[in-house]
């Protein structure tokens, strides 16, 4: 059984509206389904406005989805009441994109990492402090810097603090929303390697949300491509890269800058007329689905 199963997830935002003016509905997430096996890193790819981050936030109910199901270990998280949701969130955590805005600048690094333990009433003060020091070492931070503030750390170190906080409650499932896109190239690889190491040591399952297709192909065996709120293609990353079926996926793959000055470049422009918004996902090759 899959660890995480998203079924027909929908999130509509109402926009505008006012005196004598009708509201309009933005279908940010428009009926998407996918499942993640225990221990795997599943990729969710798309550009801004595709709904990929909204999907991640709906899965943890950081925003409430309009309808659908989010099954975790077989149980529908969307049906949980407050106390059950609170307990479930210990097992599902999130790492955010921007290590500059997602850490409270007025809190010491130690307090940022300790906070989830306090909220969930875990251990006494001494035990919690030990746990924080252990988490610091786990993510490659120096426990000597426990009392520093976020601005005293580099971007890569801040992302490690965010990761230590996410891991404080020993979750089994972590949603990483563009965890390295704000970091320098040489630091990105360090953080990706750390994520892979931690996955092995702690048996973590990841949902990796990103726009960087090269990175997603590298670390995710399976992935889904989102476009305007819908999954337009999903399956084995290798298969999607080798034989993209949806016009959007083709355009997206052809847009990746190639780090080879002599590589032939063939940009494929997305022809909006080729996209049928109502086409259902069809299995075109074993395990490879596309909405064409």
């Amino acid at each position, binding site marked *: 059984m899959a660890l995480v199963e998203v079924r027909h997830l929908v999130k509509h935002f109402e926009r505008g509206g006012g005196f004598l003016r009708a509201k309009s509905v933005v279908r940010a997430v428009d009926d998407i389904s996918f499942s993640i096996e225990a221990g795997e890193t599943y990729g969710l790819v798309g550009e801004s406005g595709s709904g990929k981050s909204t999907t991640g936030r709906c899965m943890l109910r950081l925003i409430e989805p309009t309808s659908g199901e989010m099954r975790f270990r077989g149980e529908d998280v969307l049906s949980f009441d407050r106390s059950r949701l609170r307990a479930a969130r210990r097992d599902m955590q999130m790492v955010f994109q921007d290590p500059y805005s997602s850490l409270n600048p007025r809190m010491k690094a130690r307090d940022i990492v300790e906070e989830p333990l306090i909220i969930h009433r875990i251990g006494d003060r001494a035990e919690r402090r030990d746990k924080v020091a252990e988490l610091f070492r786990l993510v490659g931070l120096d426990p000597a810097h426990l009392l520093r503030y976020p601005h005293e750390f580099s971007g890569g170190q801040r992302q490690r603090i965010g990761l230590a906080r996410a891991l404080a409650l020993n979750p089994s499932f972590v949603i990483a929303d563009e965890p390295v896109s704000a970091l320098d*190239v040489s630091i990105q*690889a360090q953080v990706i390697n750390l994520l892979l190491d931690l996955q092995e040591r702690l048996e973590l399952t990841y949902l990796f949300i990103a726009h960087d*297709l090269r*990175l997603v*192909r*590298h670390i*995710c*065996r399976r992935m889904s491509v989102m476009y305007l709120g819908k999954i337009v293609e999903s399956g084995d990353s290798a298969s999607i890269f080798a034989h993209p079926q949806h016009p959007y996926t083709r355009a997206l793959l052809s847009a990746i*800058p190639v780090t080879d000055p002599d590589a032939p470049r063939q940009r494929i*422009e997305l022809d909006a007329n080729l996209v049928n918004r109502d086409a259902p996902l069809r299995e075109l090759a074993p395990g490879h689905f596309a909405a064409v």
Partner: protein
Amino acid sequence: MDEPLLSVQNLTTVFDVPGHPVVAVDNVSFEIRKSETLGLVGESGSGKSVTAFSILQLLQHPGRITGGSVLFQGRDLLALPENEVRKIRGAGIGLIFQEPMAALNPVMRVGAQISESLIVHGLANKREARDRAIDLLRAVRIVEPETRVDDYPHQLSGGMRQRVMIAVALACRPPMVIADEPTTALDVTVQAQILELLREMKNTFDVSLLLITHDLGVIAETADRVAVMYAGRIVEQGPVRDIFRKPLHPYTQGLLASIPGEGTGARLRAIEGVVPNLATLPPGCTFAPRCPYRMEVCTTAVPALVDIDPGHSVRCYLHSDRAEARVMTTPVMTV
């Protein structure tokens, strides 16, 4: 060989932070010829953007140019009075910024922003400038330029705003354009379109381009030559093929190796450590603390930039034996 259009020699820019001056740009030298694209690549804090701002003398306090020269069409911009430099900005060297929403004036119609420099530089009257603005919007592939010319920036998408920025930069037909991370804030597909447009504009308008970016993919697709900056210094410079096929500096090698490849699940080859704080730079090679090939000499004195192949130079002791004579004659200045 013809004169370079822009020749930057030993440019040094210091930020006067109380207590310890920070050398953000340290003896940077490069040339750009007519119709050529030089890619200036580096991570945050490498000094690549400060270099661009120094060339146009747009530095803000406490930044200050302490040495070197910037020869543009044979004139040293650093020796010119401010009103002369102002004539160069826009008319001689156009500038494209990373964030079009921050660089464009939100309460000014895009047409007026494009024609502003034409009017300021006395190249057109108001009506002609509007017609030129429409032509430029058409040139940067904006649909219905006749109506878009009266739009405000917020009415345009991110990609269209960057197209407007390119139109602003090209308005006075400058022989050179500096583009500072022109595609970084954009989505992948829009980024590809803007790169395509930059290449096209380069040919149509025959401009030289100084392209500043952290993205090696953008460099590989656009640049003729590449200069790699690390902690304020150029550590390697050469033709784009040399840089990608046989990188010489361990930092360049590390950057190229850390790009995700085709394999799945494997560890990436990361460069260990962090970019040094410019206020407390290590003595010698600034990359030495992170370098897998570090030798004793690396932490004693700054290696000189030496030519290895024609037009391909590197600042690294691993290669200094191949050009020992030059090391002896090249003075290394420290501030």
